[in-house]
């Protein structure tokens, strides 16, 4: 293709960071979506707002909060290091964390919509047929919500690919470790005469994002059960 080896490495890293971000964000995102769709508890509005916070907060603030929480001396970061020998700051894993946090609101939104669209009378029918709560959940609720879950995954992936502000604040720009597509583009823009690199990386970004959006839309339309709808 038209990318150089270094540029391929950037794309590769971006895909790795985003892939990890959505895979690890999926379980908490689904749990939150389920809670917000079905739960009735005090403080629900607050939880809803908290989940959406990364969407409206300046990304640099989110990055700074991650720095405080997950940094070497942060309350979470120091324990992760102590117990698991895991360091996030200035590592690609930290980039994945930042991307995951930024993708969370979009993922929760998509999944919540599809969980809300599940016909609860079908769950009642399953219970009359002898299904336990868990069986109803895994055989009725989850499969019926699946298109939205997949759409949320793809949407979260697209969001992760584009993540910039929180990432550069939290893990900085380290080529080969945390230099994802948007960060590489930004860095290249600072160097005179690198228009060609910027163009190639930007075109790659557009292709990836467009592909993910189209895929997400296709998934949510193909709601096997004739339910579901648009996520965007």
């Amino acid at each position: 293709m038209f990318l150089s080896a270094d540029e391929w490495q950037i794309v590769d890293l971006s895909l790795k960071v985003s892939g990890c971000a959505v895979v690890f964000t999926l379980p908490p995102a689904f749990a939150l979506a389920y809670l917000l769709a079905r739960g009735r508890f005090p403080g629900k509005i607050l939880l809803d707002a908290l989940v959406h916070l990364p969407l409206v907060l300046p990304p640099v603030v989110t990055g700074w909060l991650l720095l405080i929480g997950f940094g070497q001396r942060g309350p979470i970061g120091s324990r992760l290091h102590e117990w698991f020998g895991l360091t996030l700051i200035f590592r690609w894993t930290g980039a994945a964390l930042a991307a995951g946090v930024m993708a969370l609101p979009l993922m929760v939104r998509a999944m919540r919509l599809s969980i809300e669209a599940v016909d609860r009378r079908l769950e009642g029918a399953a219970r009359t047929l002898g299904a336990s709560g868990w069986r109803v959940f895994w055989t009725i609720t989850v499969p019926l919500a699946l298109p939205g879950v997949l759409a949320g995954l793809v949407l979260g992936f697209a969001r992760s690919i584009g993540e910039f502000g929180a990432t550069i604040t939290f893990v900085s720009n380290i080529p080969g470790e945390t230099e994802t597509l948007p960060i590489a583009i930004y860095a290249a823009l600072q160097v005179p005469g690198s228009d060609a690199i910027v163009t190639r990386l930007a075109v790659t970004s557009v292709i990836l994002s467009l592909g993910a959006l189209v895929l997400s839309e296709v998934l949510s339309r193909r709601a096997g059960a004739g339910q579901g709808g648009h996520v965007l």
Partner: protein
Amino acid sequence: MSFDVDVRRRMGPNTEVAIGFATGPGLTALFGPSGAGKTSVLGMIAGLIRPDAGHVRVAGETLFDLDAAIDMPCARRAAGYVFQDARLFPHLRVRANLRYGQRRATTPAMSLEAMAAFLGIDHLLDRWPRTLSGGEAQRVAIGRALLSGPRFLLMDEPLASLDTARRGEVMILIERVRDQLGLPILYVSHDRGEVDRLAGTVVEMG
């Protein structure tokens, strides 16, 4: 006694469903106009709605009794519930829909194949629910309920959404179920003709 029901439940600020009846074997019709709360009564017997007070006993077994603090979970009541709108699982083929409740049936009276033949749905097993006509879907729903090893059947206007020709077919089927399987059946309807033809006992409501 087949159904021994005495339940009360507030459904809204000004509506309360309250009914008491005891029936013999065979098919009992719960008859009354739309909005009388017939479906709510079925829901309370099946365990989908919790009554505010009273008791539900079917074939000698107590499923709910407020005073004795008995409230058997819906999944264990072994109700064969046939809903008005069939309520087939849209993401499962007909065969998987029929199989869904089978694991509860400890002593399957009939295999899936025999049931499909009994109900005339053997040619539909590999179809998706959305491709079925109303009458076909309702027959599958009856099969699904029967294959779950029910101790009794609850039928909520199973003919209401069908055209006249299909009604006749499904009615004949319900008569066969009533006469050949010997399960207590509570059948909700607002149609006098249906009730007269199918029911041994009629409970008026509303």
